[in-house]
């Protein structure tokens, strides 16, 4: 520890700290622009000059390391003169356009100019003007306002992992820009808006729509990916105007992904439902809640009378709140059906009967930063988990080794230790190679149930490398990404990584797909009553239909799995593993109740449409991928006749004469699920009772599909966020294949081709991606143009037109 004195206060700080760090520790504010706690030190704005005893001139606090006995004054004559001088220089070229600048009211330059600027300028010459740049649909520029702090540049290099912005020119001619004609496409790009201390980079969707002081700030939680980013939602006239990060070091740090930041536009979409609707003798009509709910109850009762309670199925999206999901499963179970699930994109449910608890990340999010070796299996990591990818990037910078086993070779903007890119059908083999290698290296026998699976397997170089990495660098962890969770070998992959973990001591888990995946599972939105039995009575599970069965997997084409469906925040024609089958079975059902915020295609297949609140219009709780319980309040009142889904389900429960549906608030429901004191849900457990690997020798088909979920198609809200829909990541879907496959088929890159899957076909352009394994076509799912095709993985045919 080093002892120094700042403004007369004694402080002890760690060796290597800067004067800025020390000042923060004792709560002394030193004005600054370029300094940011998460970025490298640039020391180029000079606003932080302070006086240091015995130093011949003022020193920048952000870049001056402390030394024993140092005496610093931040407010002495010399310091203040220096700070005022810097301010005068900064203002020489800065335009006086605060009245029309979106940053006005939350501008660091404006604030500090009040403290350090003078009332008039001595500068008589012409100010410089800089042309604005087109950085894409999310960031608007006013480059004349830039003060060249380079925070935006450093953010790209250090946090987003890709340098898209740079500072060209020198001296007075310096400009922030992208390389000739490029836009900023990083999935974390919006953070530069927060970082920019002036109004040079501002939010394009929010631009000119409100002044910051007119907005009320309300806390919330992001409903998108499994991270559960903490939000400040800003509201004016009962409308969500923008979303900013709320700092939480344990979750999102001070960042937000663009999805979290800009998808609020979807909340104000024209596709929002505002009034209940029922279908009477084939015609849609709007009606009051009472009528709609009576109609719903009547419909459900009819189906039960005709076919029994087992013929009803419920599917709840894991983007719904804990309270809503809990009531949905309670309703179903009281009706006498265990047909309830949230895992709509999962295709392999074999682990259900052997799972011991709720699958989760396996460690806390913050611990990811401390990992020394990480193996990720089956993930479009940057797109599915943008901020987790960022954390992993930082861990790699601190020396962690990152390896991936994936069917795609996308750049993760970080260093990879080992990489295996294979067709989906070969992924299990690749993981088993690692298992075999760790067993060999540690000389520990592989557990009996799965030993036969690895017998015939040959260990590749990279598998051995991954194995060594996991063993030698601890703490280590193995994660299954979304692709692995949707994968037809999910249970096998899970068993394999558990076995790897047992041998190496690595932690293992899944990267939670949705904001409430863990929550949905933990309150029993799965086909057995998680809450009713103790974790180890797995054999005796009285199980209903899982999401796959309800959505037509393994059910013959003529049948429908259920006669009635209750859908919560779900668009099954986009949100399922096999969208073609899902549409068929839902269409065929006798009675479909859809609780949703958006109209979409619901009128095509539903019989009742109940408009329910998105996360901003109801109180509720999300449980993130590490099991952290995060509750929030509604930030605006419900749109039109919209009601929170928990209220709708409560009334429905009462109308169906079920017991235990008398709640006055969502907090009451919450109290029934978890106690107030709990910070994390209790039943997290990744372990399987028995390891089981069945499909290790399965042959892939001639050409396989790699179906991923595009970042801005993943849930109903983001699908309707118009600015995000203009980004590169939301470009119209294309198919990708290796040049080897295209050559074989005699197809040129860019050509339109016919793609055929399970007797459905579409035509679209195909492009080359030589980072793909041969004999695979990468073709996104969850897109209206493509959802006619079937399963996310499996056989697919490519034909020249």
């Amino acid at each position, binding site marked *: 520890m080093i002892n120094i004195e700042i403004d007369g206060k004694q402080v002890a700080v760690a060796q290597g700290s800067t004067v800025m760090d020390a000042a923060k520790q004792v709560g002394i504010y030193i004005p600054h622009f370029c300094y940011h706690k998460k970025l490298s030190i640039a020391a180029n704005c000079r606003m932080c000059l302070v006086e240091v005893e015995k130093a011949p001139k003022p020193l920048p606090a952000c870049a001056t390391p402390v030394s024993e006995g140092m005496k610093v004054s931040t407010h002495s004559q010399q310091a203040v003169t220096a700070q005022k001088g810097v301010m005068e220089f900064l203002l020489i070229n800065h335009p006086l356009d605060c009245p029309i600048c979106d940053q006005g009211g939350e501008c660091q330059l404006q604030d500090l100019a009040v403290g350090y600027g003078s009332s008039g300028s001595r500068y008589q010459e012409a100010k410089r003007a800089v042309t604005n740049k087109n950085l894409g649909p999310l960031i608007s520029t006013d480059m004349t306002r830039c003060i060249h702090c380079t925070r935006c540049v450093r953010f790209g290099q250090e946090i987003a992992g890709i340098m898209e912005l740079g500072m*060209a020119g020198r001296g007075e001619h310096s400009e922030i820009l992208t390389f000739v004609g490029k836009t900023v496409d990083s999935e974390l790009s919006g953070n530069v808006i927060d970082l920019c201390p002036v109004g040079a980079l501002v939010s394009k969707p929010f631009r000119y729509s409100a002044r910051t002081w007119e907005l009320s700030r309300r806390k919330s939680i992001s409903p998108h990916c499994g991270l559960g980013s903490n939000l400040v939602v800003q509201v004016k006239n009962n409308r969500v105007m923008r979303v900013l990060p709320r700092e939480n070091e344990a979750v999102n740090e001070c960042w937000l992904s663009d999805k979290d930041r800009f998808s609020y536009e979807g909340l104000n979409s024209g596709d929002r439902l505002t009034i209940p609707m029922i279908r009477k003798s084939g015609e849609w009509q709007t009606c009051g809640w009472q009528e709609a709910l009576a109609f719903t109850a009547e419909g459900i009762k009819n189906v039960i009378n005709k076919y029994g309670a087992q013929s009803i199925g419920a599917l709840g999206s894991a983007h719904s709140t804990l309270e809503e999901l809990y009531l949905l499963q309670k309703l179903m179970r009281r009706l006498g059906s265990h047909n309830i699930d949230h895992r709509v994109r999962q295709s392999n449910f074999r682990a259900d009967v052997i799972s011991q608890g709720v699958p989760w990340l396996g460690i806390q999010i913050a611990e990811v930063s401390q990992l020394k070796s990480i193996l990720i299996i089956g993930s479009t990591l940057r797109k599915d988990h943008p901020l987790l990818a960022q954390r992993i990037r930082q861990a790699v910078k601190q020396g962690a080794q990152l390896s991936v086993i994936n069917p795609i070779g996308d750049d993760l903007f970080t260093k990879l230790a080992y990489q295996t890119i294979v067709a989906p059908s070969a992924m299990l083999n690749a993981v088993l190679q690692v298992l075999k290698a760790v067993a060999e290296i540690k000389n520990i026998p592989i557990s009996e149930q799965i030993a036969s699976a690895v017998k015939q397997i040959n260990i590749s170089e990279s598998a051995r490398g991954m194995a060594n990495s996991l063993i030698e660098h601890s703490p280590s962890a193995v994660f299954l990404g979304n692709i692995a969770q949707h994968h037809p070998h999910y249970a096998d992959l899970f068993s394999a990584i558990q076995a790897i973990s047992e041998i190496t001591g690595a932690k293992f888990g899944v990267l939670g797909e949705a904001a409430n995946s863990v929550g949905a599972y933990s309150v029993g939105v799965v086909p057995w009553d998680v809450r009713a039995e103790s974790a180890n009575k797995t054999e005796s599970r009285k199980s209903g239909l899982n999401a796959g069965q309800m959505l037509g997997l393994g059910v013959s084409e003529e049948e429908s799995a259920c006669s009635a469906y209750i859908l919560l925040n779900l668009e099954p024609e986009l949100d399922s593993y096999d969208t073609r089958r899902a549409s068929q079975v839902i269409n065929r059902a006798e009675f479909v109740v859809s609780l949703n915020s958006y109209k979409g295609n619901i009128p095509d297949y539903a019989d009742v449409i109940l408009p329910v609140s998105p996360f901003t219009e109801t109180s509720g709780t999300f449980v993130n991928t590490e099991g952290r319980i995060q509750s929030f309040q509604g930030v605006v009142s419900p749109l039109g006749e919209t009601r929170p889904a928990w209220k709708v389900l409560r009334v429905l429960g009462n109308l169906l004469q079920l017991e235990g549906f008398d709640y006055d608030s969502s907090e009451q429901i919450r109290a029934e699920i978890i106690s107030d004191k709990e910070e994390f849900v209790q039943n997290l457990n990744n372990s399987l009772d028995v390891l089981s690997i069945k499909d290790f020798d399965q042959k892939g088909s001639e050409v396989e599909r790699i179906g991923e979920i595009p970042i801005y198609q993943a849930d109903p809200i983001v699908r309707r966020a118009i600015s995000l829909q203009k980004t590169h990541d939301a470009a119209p879907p294309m198919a990708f294949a290796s040049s080897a496959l295209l050559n074989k088929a005699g197809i040129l890159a860019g050509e339109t081709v016919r793609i055929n899957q399970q007797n459905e076909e579409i035509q679209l352009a195909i492009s080359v991606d030589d980072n793909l394994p041969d004999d695979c076509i990468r073709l996104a799912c969850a897109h209206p143009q493509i959802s006619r095709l079937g399963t996310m993985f499996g056989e697919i045919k490519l034909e020249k037109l």
Partner: protein
Amino acid sequence: MNSLMLSIEALKKIDREIAKYPTDKKQSAVMSALAIAQDEKGWLATETMDFIADYLEMPAIAVYEVATFYNMYNLKPIGKYKLTVCTNLPCALSGSNQTVDYLKKKLGIGFNETTVDGLFTLKEGECMGACGDAPVLLVNNKRMCSFMTEDQIDKLLEELKK
């Protein structure tokens, strides 16, 4: 990536520069790589910078930062001879303004312009560390000319025109 962007010789030279740095610090060679490319091409087109970025495995924008920072790199096509006159204080005190005026009059061009015959481009430069010889100018980044009075200029232009 178009590997015919630069000649084999140029690539060899760049490789020699790369070899001077640790293997994971290829981008340290960016300044010499740009200079080599410019020697061959006369100027640095966007595609050339893109090529160098790929070659050194660094972001294109980072190459651009370097190329725009140093005014010895030409980002537009220029005449056969680039005359860069230092206009910083010591040179200015020793008459570089007159040097500039004389050159402008004689060549009939201003700063950043090229004569119609494509022979000369005039550029303004920063201190070249040769203030003792002021006023100074630089021909094609490589040849330093000292004490540039009017007859010195005449001589230089005569020589270059040949």
